[in-house]
């Protein structure tokens, strides 16, 4: 069976001061439908660049990325925009919502863009927001919501069209621990339920416990792919784990201690 998302030998290189810099180098991995994957790594490891390429926002220098078997690099700019609209759901770190649209309108925006703003679509948007615990805030503006509520609205918007791929860029960056867990758990559950392929870029190793797999990037390479519960548990709680070392997961010991504290 074909994976929902396939990255094959993806490379992105830049020219800087007459030398070639590899932001991502020959990264290959697949994400199955209904699978929630965390993309981790230290700053500069290439995970956000990878996410941009997975979304079709950035063209790889070489290699291919395919969603539902359709290779993004063969599409024109306008085709990729339409493809994102239909096939890819997005949750960003910040500036997630249109500030002058209400919670419900923000979610319905995806329906409008896809020409599905009918009674069925509107009912689905409402139901999704109720499922995310936002039934009291449907007509609130983003500025009237907490950070966690805003991220939940963004999750609803990313999933309303039943996309093949859901991408989340540091969705917990501005949240406290409790809300961060709530948001990621909700995202993971909905990805599983809807059968989308979910990829979350995160710095916060505590969040990997909700992932089915962790793809760890280091200096532009896919360094490790961790998939057993034991490995994931160690990654989430390194202080309690003796079998994994900082070198293996690509973080300095200080960062791990800080994150694990």
């Amino acid at each position, binding site marked *: 069976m074909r994976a929902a998302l396939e990255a094959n030998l993806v490379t992105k290189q830049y020219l800087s001061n007459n030398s070639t810099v590899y932001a991502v180098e020959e990264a290959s991995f697949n994400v199955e439908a209904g699978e929630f994957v965390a993309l981790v790594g230290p700053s500069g490891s290439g995970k956000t660049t990878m996410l941009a390429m997975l979304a079709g*926002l950035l063209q790889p220098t070489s290699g291919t990325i395919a969603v539902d078997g359709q290779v993004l690099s063969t599409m024109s700019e306008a085709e990729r*925009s339409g493809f994102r*609209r239909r096939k890819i759901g997005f949750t960003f770190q910040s500036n997630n919502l*249109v500030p*002058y649209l209400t919670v419900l309108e923000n979610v319905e925006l995806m329906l409008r863009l896809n020409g599905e703003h009918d009674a069925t679509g509107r009912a689905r948007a409402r139901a999704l927001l109720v499922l995310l615990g936002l039934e009291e805030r449907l007509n609130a*503006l983003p500025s009237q919501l907490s950070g966690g509520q805003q991220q939940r609205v963004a999750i609803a918007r990313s999933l309303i069209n039943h996309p093949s791929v859901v991408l989340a860029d540091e969705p917990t960056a501005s949240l406290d621990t409790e809300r961060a867990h709530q948001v990621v758990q909700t995202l993971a559950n909905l990805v599983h339920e809807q059968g989308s392929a979910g990829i979350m870029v995160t710095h916060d190793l505590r969040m990997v416990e909700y992932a089915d797999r962790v793809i760890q990037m280091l200096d532009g390479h896919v360094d490790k792919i961790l998939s057993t519960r034991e490995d994931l548990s160690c990654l989430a709680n390194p202080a309690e784990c003796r079998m994994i070392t900082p070198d293996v997961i690509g973080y300095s010991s200080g960062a791990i201690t800080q994150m694990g504290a």
Partner: protein
Amino acid sequence: MSTAIHLSLSEIWRNRGRFVLFSLVVALITVLILFVAALGEGLGTGNRELIENLNAELIVYQDTARLSIASSRIDEDTLRAVRYVDGVRAVGSLGFSSAAVILDGEEEPLDVALIGVEPGKPGEPSVVSGQGLRRKNGDEAIVDRTIAAVAGLEVGDEITLRTLQGDEDEFYTLKVVGISESQKYGIRPSVFAPLYTWDEVRAKGTPGRSTAAPVGNVAAVQLEDPAQMEVLSQQIETRVDGVQAVDRRTAYESTPGYTEQQSTLGTQNAFALLIGVLVIGGFFQIQTLQKVPQIGMLKAIGTPNAIVAVAALLQIVAVTLLGVLIGSAVTLALSLGFPPNIPIVFEPGSAALAVGTIMLMGPLGGLVSVRYSLKVEPLIALGLSA
């Protein structure tokens, strides 16, 4: 399209204070532009109205006068010679001078243009009430609408004119036999008197009525076939010594200062429009710069460029339209309060042109911001740049 409208109007509605405030700025610019246009129209009309409305196709000047009415003299022999040119139907002498109409009470006298005309000949205005002049030396007058309104005159009333005779002020009383449409000349309303009466009343170094036939400044010429105006003007200049014949437009454009005045006001209006374009463009550019992350996010989730562009354009058009409507309403309200002797004329054609120009130029100013928003990279949503 409906998504663009939804985005555009939602943003306006949820930020209505900001957008209304900016519409008020556009409204002020509209008021300024409309007033300058009305002032230009008023001053232009005040200078050209009499000549523009003259019931004649050609105006004949003394050729050495270089189209200056004040410097031109057309005597009786010249008038007769013009009359005998083939194709000329009628000729009337026109004398130009000034006087002051004495008003009731403590009010300041009203400065008017005193125009001498030959009763029943070209140059005598048609009346909207009363009747035309009957006798070539009668103590009667036709006043224009503005004088009638300011002085509260009706047909049958008398007006008193004051002019300087020698070094003394003299007063003359004429009976109002008719009221004409507004016939301003030199930005003053006009009183029309028979040429002989005009010659007596007009300011002179020596008081009294001349024994010789009065000499007007120019001649108004009606043609058998108005389409032959150009040919006839050449024939008149060829057949009659010492004259220059021009059409009405050339005549009023040669009024001292007329062209300069109109070009000054036109330039002022062009600058007001330019400022309007820059203000509208500046506002939307600042707004677009503030919205770059939001525009990037919209593009990242797959919003087509067309929706981003149409939404931005709709906002510009809506804000400009609202501003123009408010500005036009304010201008209309203000114009109703203006006294008739102030040279401001809200001519529907030029007001519509000014409003249309603002409506066109506003969005043009905003196109820079639309172009900018189209160039925003969706990568910005991920904190990256291309």
